[in-house]
């Protein structure tokens, strides 16, 4: 029994990670129709920022404060990834609007460079991030059934991010601008919105979210230069399945893929589970090419 309860929890937990990783992508893709293959590398950057933050604490602060580093690492990861994203947008991405296919290729080049950069700076071997003490252990439901705090924390983090994005997009002035550009770039321009700036900021936010994801991932897995590549494709699937440019869609897509993954993995085996999930995604897209939720548009070449 409890095995199944735990399995359901696992499903949700895996989904939450996917959603977290995909949020940023969904926004950038939705806004500028740019597919950012380097998104995974922003996750990696977030992870390394966490690593550095930890070392900072170990080096300069008292042991008793160590637990705090993670709290600080989250905004730091957001900032750094966001900043690098901002720069990337200004130098590369902005040349790629309305060239989605090319954007895939150029950003892939970017990801190569970023990975090699990480290898040069931090060396080839993985680095270890010690998770803060207050995240060790878990919530004990019953004998042998324990929900790890780390995963609970990540789920909470994801919900926070989604709410944050929702507020930003639907409750703030900037958000109105962003959505205006999403829906009709030309119109927005003609109404005096500085789309260049909106693009830059949105891309920065998207990258920042990836940074947070990387920060969270340090709790679960290895931290190395290839960290991002393990997630990039799955996140694309989430975005496409969910439907471009909708928070709801991304959440739903993530939940669907995450649970499907864990369930199939549980009843078959990991490899087969993965294969089945991707086949299901392809099949689903045949039925709904635009994903679960999509903004129906009347443009001639949609």
């Amino acid at each position: 029994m409890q095995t199944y309860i735990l399995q359901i929890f696992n499903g949700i937990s895996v989904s939450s990670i996917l959603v977290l990783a995909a949020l940023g992508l969904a926004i950038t893709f939705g806004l500028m129709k740019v597919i950012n293959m380097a998104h995974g590398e922003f996750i990696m950057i977030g992870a390394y920022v966490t690593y550095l933050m930890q070392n900072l604490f170990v080096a300069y602060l008292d042991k008793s404060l160590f637990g705090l580093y993670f709290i600080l690492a989250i905004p730091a990861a957001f900032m750094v990834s966001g900043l690098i994203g901002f720069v990337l947008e200004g130098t590369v991405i902005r040349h790629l609007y309305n060239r989605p296919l090319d954007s895939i290729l150029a950003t892939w080049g970017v990801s190569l460079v970023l990975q090699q950069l990480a290898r040069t700076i931090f060396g080839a071997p993985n680095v270890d991030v010690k998770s803060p003490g207050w995240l060790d252990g878990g919530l004990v439901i019953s004998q042998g059934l324990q929900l790890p705090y780390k995963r609970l924390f990540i789920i909470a983090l994801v919900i926070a991010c989604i709410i944050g994005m929702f507020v930003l997009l639907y409750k703030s002035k900037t958000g109105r601008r962003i959505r205006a550009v999403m829906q009709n770039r030309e119109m927005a321009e003609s109404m005096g919105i500085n789309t260049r700036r909106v693009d830059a900021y949105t891309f920065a936010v998207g990258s920042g979210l990836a940074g947070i994801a990387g920060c969270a991932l340090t709790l679960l897995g290895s931290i190395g230069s290839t960290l991002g590549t393990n997630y990039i494709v799955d996140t694309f699937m989430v975005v496409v399945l969910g439907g471009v440019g909708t928070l709801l869609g991304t959440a739903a897509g993530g939940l669907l893929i995450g649970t499907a993954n864990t369930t199939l993995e549980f009843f078959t085996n990991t490899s087969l589970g993965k294969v089945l999930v991707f086949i299901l995604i392809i099949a689903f897209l045949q039925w709904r090419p635009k994903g679960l939720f999509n903004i129906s548009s009347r443009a001639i070449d949609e």
Partner: protein
Amino acid sequence: MKNISLTTKKRAAGLISATLIAGLLLTGCSSSQPSKPAETAGSGDKIKVGILHSLSGTMAISEVSVKDAEMMAIEEINASGGVLGKKIEPIVEDGASNWPNFAEKAKKLLQQDKVATVFGGWTSASRKAMLPVFEENNGLLWYPVQYEGMEASPNIFYSGAAPNQQIVPAVEWLFKNKGKKFFLLGSDYVFPRTANKIIKAQLKALGGETVAEEYTPLGHTDYSTIVNKIKASKPDVVFNTLNGDSNVAFFKQLKDAGITSKDLTTLSVSVAEEEVRGIGADNMKGQLVSWNYYQTTDTPENKEFVKKYKAKYGADRVTDDPIEAAYDQVYLWAAAVKKAGTTDVDKVKEAAKGIEFKAPEGLVKIEGENQHLWKPVRIGEVTADGLIKEIWSTDKTVKPDPFLKSYDWAKGLSN
């Protein structure tokens, strides 16, 4: 571009083909890069040897430090006058974690650079990819990593453990001390699958039980479901043949699920000191591993070795089994060359039989009939400081038996 005159059309053609030929020459030129192809490894005042590991891609994590160890050994030998009065000149190539690339670079080292021998490889896949190249060109490969056995190429020396020098003793020990129910977890490639095949046969013979056998793709990152399966099947031991990054995810998530070494024994055969650093000592504290060498191994040679390695590559670096094996194999080759008085492959192979070397792990000897090493076997426990302390070891070195001929339960495993 309207109405281009014919001449300019020709020029365009010229330009394009120029770029192409440039490309071709670049390929061609680098052929004359290290030395004239005509010259053989022995001639001149240098002996060229190849070093072929993944310096980029996923496997770089492990292989870079192996390369370092080999370079260190070469330097030491050169410092003490080299071999046959000649200095050893290493030619380093990048396998880039890509098997065909290993084959290509091996070809290049043998055919282009005419190296005397090659030290290289980590994954079984990379070795399998290089094997035909070495047999075809009658080259010499020294392979420093424990592997699944069932192989003895006349052109390869295996300085890592054969299954009967790591897996088989480990299973025996676990069966005696930890319990009968095994959960087999591995990455989805040839080493874990073959290893588990051996383990299952052995357990059957011992009267143990395999409760489950799970494989995850290389680079798999979420083990919550696997951990759940482990809980459900209540094994005494998890025999872990996961590779690389996956270990990090597995052990972190195992600990989060509230399972520590007290609740459940795991024994890993692909996790050494280097990997422990990436996983985090606190995540693996008390878990078991099986190797032939640990940084803590108590021999005078090892104290010396660790000191030199740290001095050369930094105090934060650790040594481990593959690193040590890589270091040994360079010395073993040098010894064989000295004995043979030449770098000629066949003569060196002949001379290598029975050669001994006081290695950090203890005295090792090349077994002539299958070109593996006699090695001591050690089971160790991960300590809080991320090192491994030996908790059990064979009293003397174990004869390598890649095909497990000496075990009746292994009949029909090797065909």
